[in-house]
């Protein structure tokens, strides 16, 4: 009789053990929709790769909470409505354990409502619009530099160099509409004259009118809230139309390596705001850059770094929460103050980023140097930029 009981207990425990092991081996499903096609496709490519790299690395480290991580990505075609549907699918059909954000503020704005409704914490690495965090949501978390802090460094550099007149313009989309007014305000605070050239629609390819008006107004500093293709086109046309500003501070364009590749020596002396640089001395950054280069054959840009950083934040929050309970994860995300490869992560109670500021970079001698803030700088800023006619 005793032997039967022991045998039964043994069988039961083995079965439980196997069952437990199976459950433990069940992967942690991380879901997101990314813009694999449509107007945001280019930026989302880097985000996709960063997500994949992180998953690969975290699995090599033993996964999350001892379980392997699996990524599930759908294509939202750069359309907020499709994104909403896909996040509903991820949540109710695929039953993902964790959510991460899509690309662009527009899509994030729409899908964050889904996350909030289902009370799933979502780290949204590629969303910058302040309004997303002004709605009283509690489950969405910002990683990226807030747009209002993009150009502050550039304006301060201009004031410090004694340049008195700044012209501002930007693409008519989310970040410029936060960044440019903030920059204009800071400029006015510092006693500079500001000329507003207005916003131009997304997809504009011809900037001759903007440049001509800046030239006519006599502005010596051109600040533009734009993306990379516009920045490239602006410099090309500035040269064509012979507009030699003393400082060019363009948004996120000049920070990307493609900028210098496309413009060659014309990229020299152009400044931009950078969320991140491969050479920034944040913890683990060098390893991240090397791994990314190895896996994808190209250097990561800040989209990749921000997305990877966002995943690091998620991992840290999960460690602190100790489980997949969304409320515990949410609390951890609110309280976390850590350094990622991307920079510092610290959010307000609403989830908006407050700890991360943008670096100002400048192309000098074919190299991208960090020129602001002074304590993080790798070189001094070169102001004024020589006129086009004087360059050889």
């Amino acid at each position, binding site marked *: 009789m005793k032997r039967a009981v022991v045998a039964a207990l043994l069988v039961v425990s083995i079965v439980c053990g196997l069952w437990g092991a199976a459950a433990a081996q069940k992967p942690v499903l991380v879901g997101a929709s990314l813009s694999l*096609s*449509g*107007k945001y*496709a*280019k930026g*989302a*490519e880097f985000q996709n790769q960063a997500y994949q790299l992180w998953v690969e690395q975290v699995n090599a480290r033993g996964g999350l909470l001892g379980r392997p991580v699996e990524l599930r990505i759908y294509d939202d075609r750069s359309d907020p409505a499709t994104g909403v549907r896909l996040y509903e699918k991820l949540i109710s059909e695929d039953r993902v354990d964790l959510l991460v954000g899509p690309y662009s503020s527009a899509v994030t704005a729409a899908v964050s409502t889904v996350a909030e409704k289902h009370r799933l914490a979502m780290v949204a690495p590629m969303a910058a619009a302040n309004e997303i965090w002004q709605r009283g949501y509690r489950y969405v978390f910002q990683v990226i530099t807030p747009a209002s802090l993009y150009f502050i460094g550039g304006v301060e550099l201009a004031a410090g160099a004694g340049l008195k007149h700044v012209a501002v313009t930007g693409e*008519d989309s989310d970040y410029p509409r936060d960044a440019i007014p903030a920059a204009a305000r800071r400029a006015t605070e510092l006693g500079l004259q500001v000329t507003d050239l*207005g*916003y*131009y*629609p997304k*997809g*504009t*390819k*011809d*900037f*001759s*009118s*903007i440049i*001509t*008006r800046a030239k006519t107004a006599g502005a010596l500093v051109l600040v533009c809230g734009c993306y990379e*293709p516009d920045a*490239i*086109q602006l410099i*090309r*046309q500035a*040269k*064509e*139309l*012979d507009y030699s500003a003393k400082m060019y501070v363009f948004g996120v364009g000049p920070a990307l390596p*493609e900028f210098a590749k*496309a*413009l*060659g020596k*014309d990229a020299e002396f152009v400044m931009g705001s950078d969320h991140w640089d491969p050479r920034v001395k944040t913890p683990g950054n060098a390893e991240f850059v090397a791994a990314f280069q190895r896996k994808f054959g190209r250097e990561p840009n800040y989209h990749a770094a921000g997305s990877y950083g966002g995943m690091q934040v998620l991992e840290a929050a999960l460690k602190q929460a100790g489980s997949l309970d969304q409320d515990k994860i949410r609390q951890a995300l609110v309280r976390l103050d850590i350094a990622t490869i991307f920079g510092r992560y610290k959010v307000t109670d609403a989830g908006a980023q407050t700890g991360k500021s943008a670096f100002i970079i400048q192309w000098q001698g074919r190299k991208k140097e960090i020129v602001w803030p002074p304590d993080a700088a790798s070189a001094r800023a070169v102001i004024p930029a020589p006129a086009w006619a004087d360059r050889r």
Partner: protein
Amino acid sequence: MNGVLLAGLYVLMAVGLNLVFGVMRVINFAHGELIVLASLMTASAFTAYGTSPLLSLLVVVPVMFLLGYGIERLVIEPVVDTPQMVSLLTTFGLSLVLINGGLLLWGAEERAVPVLTGAFRIGTLAVPRVRVLTFGIAAAATLALYAFLRLSDWGRAVRATAQAPTMAQTCGIDVRRVRGLAFALATALAALAGSLLVIMIPVDPQVGGLLILKAFAVVVLGGLGNLLGALLGALVLANAEVFAAYYVSPVLSEAVAFLVLLGLLLLRRHDPLAVGTA
């Protein structure tokens, strides 16, 4: 000045669309994608081998010519006599296939061919070199097309098919081959436009939609099937855009261009569907 030069490129972009509509009454929704395909091929040749676009177009244009012929025989020919929407949706489907192909082969990134930067200085005006060149080539190509249609046997066959297909058939013209030729020609012209376009602005696989809107505007302004009208249309559109961008605001310049388009459309007196004489 800028407006006139821009018009040159617009004409080139629109001429192919015009030709196809004139000959077979099909609005080729994939026209923009064909332009883009040529742009991307030119850009690749440049980045891989450093070939100047003026050289690579000697290969790109004939390749696209053949591609156009193939597309016409396979996809367009069956929908030639069907209601407008059928051919429109067919070419739209084609455009999706081309966009996807572009995305798979080239990725979503923009490609540019940074040659011929810098400008000629005429007094106080800075005239970008690349636009002068584009204008020159576009003008030459348009004139060549005009001459072809007016003077050569094949050109006459094309015009005959455009004006009266059944009559043309009875006169012994192989209408199907003529249509294939017309579409192939249109694609070749689109390819030429694409090769030149990528020198001026960066191109990615998804800008075809924007391009075709511009081409539409030109074609509609000048009258579908009317070559000379297309030239006028391009001039109006390009100058309206440049004017509006400078004096009104960059945001509204495209809207102004469209409003001009709409206004002129509504003012047209004669039957807009008459096939032109050019």
